[in-house]
């Protein structure tokens, strides 16, 4: 879809992205953070439409399930870039290879530190579990994480998360 110009840059986020770094987690769908080239009139209104994806779905004969596009059996949720954090996370997403018997596929996965920042911003119980998994998995570049949190105004949420979970704050003292 990226090569066909339907979407701009993309990266895997959510449970699949977390599974890249730590133990695999059960999930119902594949979440994709995606940017779109906006036309001038869209830039004015700020509205992003997923129409190109749904047109592409129809052309390719992919099914739709609860507003997700089902690609090769997986409901895929396309999440448009919604703020500076998303934009930075997408720009700095890591290149990843999926090598199996069917051959190699190159893709992009959100960096672990941006994944933590994103989970913190969303703030559901399962997002906090994901942060804990990434912390316990020792996969985080902590100085980088602290910089990202500070840059995107998430320091207070992070301090509260650390306090609630009895974690010694690696970004402190402030």
């Amino acid at each position, binding site marked *: 879809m990226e090569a066909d110009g339907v979407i701009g840059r993309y990266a895997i986020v959510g449970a699949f992205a977390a599974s890249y770094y*730590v*133990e695999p987690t059960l*999930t119902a769908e594949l979440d994709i953070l995606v940017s779109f080239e906006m036309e001038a009139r869209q830039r004015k209104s700020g509205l992003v439409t997923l129409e190109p994806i749904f047109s592409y779905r129809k052309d390719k004969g992919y099914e739709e399930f609860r507003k997700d596009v089902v690609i090769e059996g997986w409901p895929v949720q396309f999440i448009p870039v919604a703020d500076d954090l998303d934009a930075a996370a997408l720009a700095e997403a890591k290149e990843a290879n*999926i*090598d*199996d018997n069917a051959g190699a596929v190159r893709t992009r996965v959100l960096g672990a530190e941006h994944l933590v920042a994103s989970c913190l911003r969303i703030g559901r119980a399962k997002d906090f579990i994901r942060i804990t998994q990434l912390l316990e998995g020792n996969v985080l570049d902590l100085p980088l994480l602290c910089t990202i949190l500070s840059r995107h105004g998430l320091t207070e949420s992070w301090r509260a998360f650390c306090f609630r979970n009895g974690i010694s704050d690696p970004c402190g003292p402030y």
Partner: protein
Amino acid sequence: MIYPDVSDILARKAEARKEIASPSFAEKIAIIEAMRERVAPFKRAREQRLATQEQRLTKQAVRRIGA
């Protein structure tokens, strides 16, 4: 009451988590797919249960409206 020490169980669990975190991305995707297949019957059963529940509530609402 004396409780048993479960620290070795927790340590083994942490070790197991570390082990399943080490395969390649492709292998992990295969694990996720396998997990999805394993829970599919439970998911179907839950959806059926919810549909039945919804049907029951709709019936109740219709009955109330009619009463």
